[in-house]
């Protein structure tokens, strides 16, 4: 069928312009930094960042894994809790009336402000306090999004279930849950980027020696800018991988879209 060549054509279409833009962007960054003679401590050229990364890739990836695992565990806990509370909100509307407006407000609160406090409670060196920051960061967007998804079925779709005299359980499992899936994945995509940022920034307020945030802060503090940027590169990499993993799962789960 014609469908296959067409789709490969589309893939080329989707990848080539970004590729060109990438080369242009990195190239002009390189040229600008070298051409204008911007001092290294201010902004290193991409080639310098990569070179610095290649000096000790294993170490950088290692501390990347340490920070990323905080992000992963934290978002797992935060998102699960968010889903759970959203389900409770649907079951007891009074809880929703009280909680959902607060959750909306809470997503306007800069959660990073909590990280020193969580450090004091759970130990600023321990990963637990970093995980806790990510949990709080991911909990509220998940709660708000999933709740909206669970109440998204229109009146007539509910009416249909009503006409079958379906139980609350059936309505929840066969109607609300699938209807909420796109909303859940929306939340997960937000959380994927948020959690990596949260885990890194939480480490700014202190953390174990081998962690991205601590490394970035220390190196930037002594103007080892290239080192700091190579760590940022690693953070980017993990953030992007996390995001892509979610998108892949989403493609599979929402095949009906």
């Amino acid at each position, binding site marked *: 069928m014609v469908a296959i060549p067409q789709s490969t054509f589309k893939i080329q279409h989707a990848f080539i312009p970004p590729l060109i833009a990438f080369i242009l962007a990195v190239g002009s960054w390189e040229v600008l930094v070298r051409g204008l003679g911007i001092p290294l401590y201010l902004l290193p050229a991409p080639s310098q960042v990569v070179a610095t990364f290649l000096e000790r890739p294993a170490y950088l990836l290692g501390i990347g894994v340490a920070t990323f695992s905080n992000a992963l565990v934290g978002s797992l806990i935060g998102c699960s809790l968010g889903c759970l509370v959203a389900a409770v909100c649907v079951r007891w509307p009074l809880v929703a009336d009280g909680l959902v407006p607060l959750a909306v407000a809470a997503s306007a609160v800069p959660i990073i402000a909590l990280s020193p406090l969580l450090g004091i409670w759970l130990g600023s060196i321990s990963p637990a306090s970093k995980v806790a920051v990510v949990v709080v960061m991911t909990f509220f967007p998940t709660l708000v999004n999933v709740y909206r998804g669970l109440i998204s079925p229109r009146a*007539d*779709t509910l*009416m*249909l*279930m*009503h*006409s*079958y*005299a*379906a*139980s609350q359980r*059936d309505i929840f499992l*066969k*109607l609300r849950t*699938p*209807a909420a*899936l796109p909303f859940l994945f929306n939340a997960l995509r937000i959380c994927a980027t948020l959690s990596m940022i949260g885990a890194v920034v939480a480490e700014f307020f202190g953390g174990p020696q081998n962690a991205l945030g601590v490394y970035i802060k220390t190196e930037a503090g002594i103007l080892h800018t290239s080192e700091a940027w190579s760590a940022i590169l690693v953070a980017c990499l993990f953030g992007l991988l996390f995001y892509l993993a979610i998108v892949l799962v989403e493609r599979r789960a*929402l095949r*009906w879209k």
Partner: protein
Amino acid sequence: MSAPMIEFDRVSKIYQSGGGPVNALHDVSLSIAAGEFIALIGPSGCGKSTLMRLVGDLEQPSAGGLRVRGKTAHQARLDRDYGIVFQSPVLYEWRSIRKNVELPLEIMGQPGPQRHARASELLRLVGLSDFGDAYPHQLSGGMQQRAAIARALSFEPAILLMDEPFGALDEITRERMQLELLSIWDGGPQRTTVIFVTHSIPEAVFLADRVVVMSPRPGRVERLVTVDLPRPRSFETREDPRFFALVTEVREGLREH
């Protein structure tokens, strides 16, 4: 004849709204026999949909008595005595067409193989055998509505409630669907009792055994027109002089109030 399938006894329905109470139905009495095809017709706001929804226990009467198969409408719903088709197909977009048809059977706890067989049978009946694995958005409006009819019939309910099911279709598709509906209805071992809400006079006359002409403010039954056209009805029925006479009679009934 035996006891009526559905019996309205001086039923009224009053909605409370900001502008004061609205008399949606006033003192409606109507008796529908088993296997009868009833069309409800009238201008917007005459309460024809309300009348249908009372049978489905989707709304409750404000006054008067309503018996469905000798029971309360509530009990009839719990006993899964009726299937319903709305103006929009209300298919669950995350389920394949086959899975949509199986939905009520799933809720009623039928085992998988039995569901599968029944769904295949119904898909053949409505001419969607090749589309069982398709998702709703891949089908045309007419095909979606066929799937909705198959879903309503899947558990062989005694009553079929149809709320302007062909209202969103074009005239050509619509006339074809009317014929198909009749052949499905005629084809079974036992005729289902149908309540069919419509805006179209020819549609009401073509389909029904009796047309209930309603008028608004307050909603009440204006006239009952018995359609004595022979069955099975066909394309030629629409060219029968008797058909035109009945259409005229219904039209006059609508003009009266």
